[in-house]
């Protein structure tokens, strides 16, 4: 295993220790891991100090986490024909750096922006023109075929994206999802040289606002590793509680919305209200309903005192029975079950090929949960449930989330019973980051594996900031779930994944 460096979640290593392989050996090594039991955590390019283009792969296999690297030419043989897990990562690299993966079966733009090296655009786009640019949609020919185009502006209060369905009557043959509308340049902004580092947590919290805690944890842990900051045990507990509150609020809100999508209104109304109670609990700790402002490198920005802990304990005790009853109402209504079961199925072998993560992966039989595999914060002090509903349909995804809510409602009081002495930290304007270093952080946010990866140069400035939201893996899962489904099941399938547009678009 000399070609792979084994690393730990959230521990910085020297960039010099990362293997720098020849491309063929790199490709062989990476494919050996990912074609069997391994998955891609990060796969990205960066320009080093000599403007040499480098490729980095962070892989997980079982309990292990590895990194390896190589230099990258302007063209290379694509990984995707050998292993589908790379398909979106390779498209992203092509767009960001103007590098062509030859023989990529689906080489289309990801977010519609110029590459950072001033190279000729791989997709033939003229970026002075507005999106969608040059995007050849997959089409199906035939007299009975019709096409449905939806978005970017959707019917409802929801983020923008474009969906293109190829249908015969009601039945969907193919759904293609084109995103990029939410692209705000988050990675570039985080990398901008010379900017005060105190902007970073604020940007990180807004990568995906519904995952503010998940992304700010990844960010803070990475900065802590590079700046040598230690976080006390109390702050770790508070940060764990915040992540679990985020999970509960989102899962409950979505269970209600799923109920609304099958026209069963009572659970929608109740869960809509109950979700708000959990956002308010986050506000109790953070002063913000999404937890923005709470997690900062080094710990937490506000103290969590006995008074706050009591509010949390009381509210959770108050709401837990009601949540169980509304779940029972939702999951026992046969009108609901008739719509949830056997709808939007992603079988295990497809989920595995695509590398689905989070509840979408677990519902298809991939047990991976970063809270168990790569525990951070206080997750080594709690046990995480593992769900057995693994058909891969809407019902499985909803059931996994119901079980996770149930367990998270127990985890928080367990953690509150521990001693929490967490002094708030003030955020200095600047940290001194370890030079020539590399760190990857992984957390199981409510949608699944969030990961941030930082590389620093010889002065300790950020050379590359790579973000991966779980949606980056899972959007293709949604497209696959629509194969041979009625088009009217799209809202239900979509909500059962509830993926992030801005987390994908960055």
């Amino acid at each position, binding site marked *: 295993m000399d070609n792979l460096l084994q690393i730990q979640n959230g521990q910085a290593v020297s960039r010099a220790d990362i293997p720098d392989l020849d491309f063929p050996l790199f490709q062989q090594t990476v494919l050996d891991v990912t074609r069997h039991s391994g998955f891609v955590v990060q796969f990205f390019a960066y320009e080093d100090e000599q403007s040499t283009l480098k490729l980095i792969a962070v892989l997980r296999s079982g309990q292990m986490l590895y990194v390896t690297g190589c230099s990258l030419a302007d063209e290379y043989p694509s990984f995707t024909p050998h292993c589908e897990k790379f398909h979106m990562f390779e498209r992203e690299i092509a767009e960001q750096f103007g590098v062509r993966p030859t023989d990529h079966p689906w080489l289309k733009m990801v977010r519609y922006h110029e590459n950072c090296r001033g190279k000729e655009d791989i997709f033939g786009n003229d970026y002075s023109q507005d999106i969608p640019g040059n995007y050849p949609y997959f089409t199906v020919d035939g007299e009975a075929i019709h096409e449905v185009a939806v978005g*970017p502006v959707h019917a409802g209060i929801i983020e923008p994206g474009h969906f293109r369905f190829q249908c015969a009557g009601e039945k969907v043959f193919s759904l293609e999802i084109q995103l990029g509308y939410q692209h705000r340049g988050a990675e570039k902004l985080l990398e901008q040289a010379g900017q005060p580092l105190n902007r970073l947590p*604020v940007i990180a919290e807004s990568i995906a*606002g519904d995952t503010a805690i998940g992304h700010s944890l990844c960010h803070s842990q990475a900065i802590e590793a590079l700046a040598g900051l230690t976080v006390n045990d109390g702050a770790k507990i508070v940060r764990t509680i915040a992540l679990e509150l985020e999970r509960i609020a989102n899962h409950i809100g979505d269970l209600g919305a799923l109920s609304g999508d099958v026209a069963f209104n009572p659970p929608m109304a109740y869960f809509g209200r109950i979700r708000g109670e959990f956002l308010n609990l986050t506000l109790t700790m953070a002063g913000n*309903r*999404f937890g923005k402002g709470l997690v900062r490198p080094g710990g937490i920005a506000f103290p969590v005192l006995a008074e706050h802990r009591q509010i949390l304990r009381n509210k959770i005790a108050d709401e837990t029975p009601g949540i169980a009853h509304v779940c029972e109402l939702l999951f026992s209504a046969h009108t609901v079950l008739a719509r949830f079961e056997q709808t939007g199925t992603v079988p295990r072998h497809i989920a595995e090929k695509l590398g689905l993560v989070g509840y979408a992966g677990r519902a298809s039989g991939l047990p991976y949960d970063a809270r168990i595999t790569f525990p951070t914060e206080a997750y080594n002090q709690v046990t995480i449930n593992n769900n057995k509903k693994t058909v891969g349909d809407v019902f499985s995804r909803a059931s996994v989330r119901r079980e996770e809510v149930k367990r998270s409602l127990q985890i928080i009081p367990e953690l509150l019973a521990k001693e929490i002495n967490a002094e708030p930290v003030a955020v200095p*304007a600047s940290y001194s980051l370890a030079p020539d270093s590399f760190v990857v952080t992984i957390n199981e946010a409510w949608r699944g594996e969030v990961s941030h990866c930082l590389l620093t140069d010889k002065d300790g400035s950020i050379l590359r900031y790579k973000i991966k939201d779980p949606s980056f893996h899972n959007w293709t899962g949604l497209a696959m779930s629509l194969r041979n489904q009625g088009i009217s099941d799209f809202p239900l399938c979509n909500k059962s994944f509830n993926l*992030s547009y*801005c987390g994908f678009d960055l």
Partner: protein
Amino acid sequence: MLSVIQNRREQGYRTTPYPKEPINLYSRYRGLPTVHQDCDKALARQCAEACPQQAIDVERMVIDIGRCTFCGQCEIQSQGKLVTFSNNFELGASSREALFTSGTLPALAEHSKQHFKSLFGRSLQLRQISAGGCNSCEADTNVLGTPFFDLQRFGIDFVASPRHADGIHVTGPISNNMKAAVLSTYEAVPAPKVVIASGCCPISGGPFWGSKDIVGDLNSLIPVDLYIPGCPPHPMTTLHALLQFFK
């Protein structure tokens, strides 16, 4: 059926009596900030420099709540000597200039365009556009439809088509890739129409200020009638602003 009724009994009636009765948010909520005019200038400058959003103007001793994300760092770092955040959620304003504040805002109801009140006071239909938003503004706008807030009881609703709308409610810093969609949605709304900028993103770029991939200021594209600051605005901030401005 029985379990539907049992759950209904258990859940009870949860809609807030607001605005008939005032509502108090939990003390830690960071609402309208006060900039203490007597603060030592050196300390003020130090805290202003530490502000991630560069929202504090030490010369005028005001804070731009159209830029501020309410992260609270200025209050922490000055130990409350420069800035303190109140739990007053009434942050809506009808002009960009009003958002540069030392602790008071003009009464919104009096600065509303009066013809909007007669046109939309009894029925206001809005088309929401997320233009680079991080989904927290969107989510906390969506909750206005839940039983606690029950926005529809005021005759206000979010609709699917701009053709059915009286105006647009925009979130996000207007990513370049959403600029065309924002403009064509605006065009599709029949006049007279209102434009609402929600959250610090469409007001100033929010956390993404300085990015070359965003427009960052909705008012530079189309005239904004109502500003609702926050990151994201608390649902009560949005509710208060809509009621004051249109009712």
